[in-house]
């Protein structure tokens, strides 16, 4: 997982609340055997509507999604996070995230920034008046910068530390590889192995 300190990219205003993971990626797109390529299923149902925000070419390179409250509810599928990241998103801004989605995002390095709904409204207006413009997210200072707007955001300390250090769960565990090796050196000899007996 890459370390995350600040990110500047095109902001995408998604004026919807309760965006569930079935909307983020419908079940029919879950059959792939890789962790990449899920961008084709991202918001698949909504993208059939020509007026959907991601169909506007100015947002093609969008990397900061600004959404309504209760983002990522429903099914626990990790594919929802993969789909957003495969598309190119590094940050989702919302006033409230579903727990499982937020947990899955932290594992994969997608920043979920909790911004007050009042500030989300201001950022939406700014982006709609300046389509395709970039906004900045500073994880060190925990602020979002959109034009003149400076909005603070919340994120728990443990997840923030992991993102700043670029540590996914596996990376974190590998920091303690010496402890794993030490444990292995003390395992009883009668424990089985799967290789031919």
């Amino acid at each position, binding site marked *: 997982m890459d370390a995350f300190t600040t990110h500047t990219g095109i902001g995408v205003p998604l004026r919807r609340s309760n965006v569930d993971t079935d909307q983020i990626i419908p079940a029919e797109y879950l*059959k792939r*055997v*890789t*962790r*990449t390529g899920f961008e084709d299923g991202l918001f698949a149902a909504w993208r059939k509507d020509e007026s959907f925000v991601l169909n506007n070419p100015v947002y093609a390179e969008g990397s900061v999604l600004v959404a309504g409250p209760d983002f990522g509810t429903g099914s*626990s599928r*990790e594919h929802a996070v*993969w789909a957003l990241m495969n598309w190119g998103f590094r940050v989702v801004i919302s006033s409230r995230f579903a727990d499982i989605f937020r947990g*899955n995002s932290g*594992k*994969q390095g997608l920043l979920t920034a909790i911004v007050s709904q009042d500030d989300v409204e201001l950022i939406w207006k700014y982006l709609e008046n300046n389509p395709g413009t970039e906004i900045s997210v500073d994880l060190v200072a925990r602020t979002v910068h959109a034009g003149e707007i400076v909005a603070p955001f919340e994120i728990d300390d*443990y997840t923030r530390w992991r993102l700043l250090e670029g540590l996914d*769960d*596996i990376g*974190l*565990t*590998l920091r*303690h*590889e010496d*402890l*794993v090796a030490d*444990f*292995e050196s003390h*395992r*009883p*000899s*009668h*424990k*089985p*192995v*799967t*290789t031919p*007996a």
Partner: protein
Amino acid sequence: MAHALEHRNAAAEGSQREVMAGTLAEKVWDAHVVRRAEGEPDLLYIDLHLLHEVTSPQAFDGLRLAGRAVRRPDLTLATEDHNVPTTPGPITDPVSKIQVETLRRNCEEFGVRLYPMGDADQGIVHVVGPQLGLTQPGMTVVCGDSHTSTHGAFGALAFGIGTSEVEHVLATQTLPLKPFRTLAVNVRGELPDGVTAKDIVLAVIAKIGTGGGQGYVIEYRGEAIEALSMEARMTVCNMSIEAGARAGMIAPDQTTFDYLRNRPHAPTGADWDAAVAEWTSLRTDDDAVFDAEVDLDAAELTPFVTWGTNPGQGLPLSASVPDPEEFADESDRLAAANALAYMGLEPGTPLRDIKVDTVFVGSCTNGRIEDLRAAAAVVQGHRVADGVRMLVVPGSAKVRLQAESEGLDKVFTEAGAEWRLPGCSMCLGMNPDTLAPGERSASTSNRNFEGRQGKGGRTHLVSPLVAAATAVRGTLSSPSDLDSASRPHGQLASATTGEA
């Protein structure tokens, strides 16, 4: 495991860990802690990691993207089960084919041992591990499959994990885990004849509900559990997840040791003695306290069947389809009404009058040799009823060979049943074995969810004994409903008692 956490904190401070009482689950947990730190989950070592074709591809892809290796291929084993056809010939479904081919490529690239279709040791992942002697008491066992709880029958702490966790175990052979709570399910007394492990676990789920085990590791205890064979214990632990529990466990004893001795991967010589000495200590201390307890009287149990669309919607076979209006709880009432509409059942219909189209004997719940023996003993000398299709799918290639050496395949085929190749098959219908819309099955599998065995299919969960009797009569039945006079002899039938 709230109080277990207290034990662990005490242990971390170097206080009197040895003298404090613990449950079986806590003892296995404590023996696998690689790292413990304030405010963080415990890092647990994993002794055995099982893989299959459906939940592993993205995990391997993740390793590849990060340039990581599998830390312990020698503690990792893969088998092809969910997608495989149970009739001879190659996989025809393109998506299934890609998943199986991907597993083969990944296992080769990362050096993981794989039992592919056609191999003498291929089979359902939860049948293969125990049969090879790889599942042993006191181990931690994980797999990207919720029925990993099966392996708890050996006194192992075994549970299902998600794809990111599969990747984590592949890369590190460990998992960061938050502690569980402990639930004792005490099944006291002796089971009546014709009542089996499946009936016990269906009754437990009906009693505590599909969410009753949430957050818990269940330990099954009591005389009725101790009297069960290993295979029957696996049936019980297998369905722990249907009560919402993370895992189910049974303390190892002489039955466990006898099952394991001389299995291909069981310890030998001095290692065997050391192992048995360690395994013998894996018992819940007399003064240990569970976070919750549930009691069942084995003598009151009878053959159990489900009538609805979750495994908690079950009743004794002698009962009738319930009236949703009789449920006190509003959400139960609604769930029952929806279930009856989906199942096409009228309140008040005796369960014994429900006619089925299909009988499925197999799955990680009831696809082992004892299950097949029990079902064969019931159908022997009978014919499968007109208009009923009976599928018998062994849990593994070894089970199939064993059954054939005992002539069970002949018993089934002479009765008019289909004798198939091993795999998960109609339990979840990822291969071509499915119910047609509106078709009804009596199934020895574990989930009666809407559409689980095929779109629009209707599932009644039953034991192998009830499945076999149902195949003969065409309606939900127990062996006692069959005319025993029509049997040529009762030799095989006697083998059913206390088994399955």
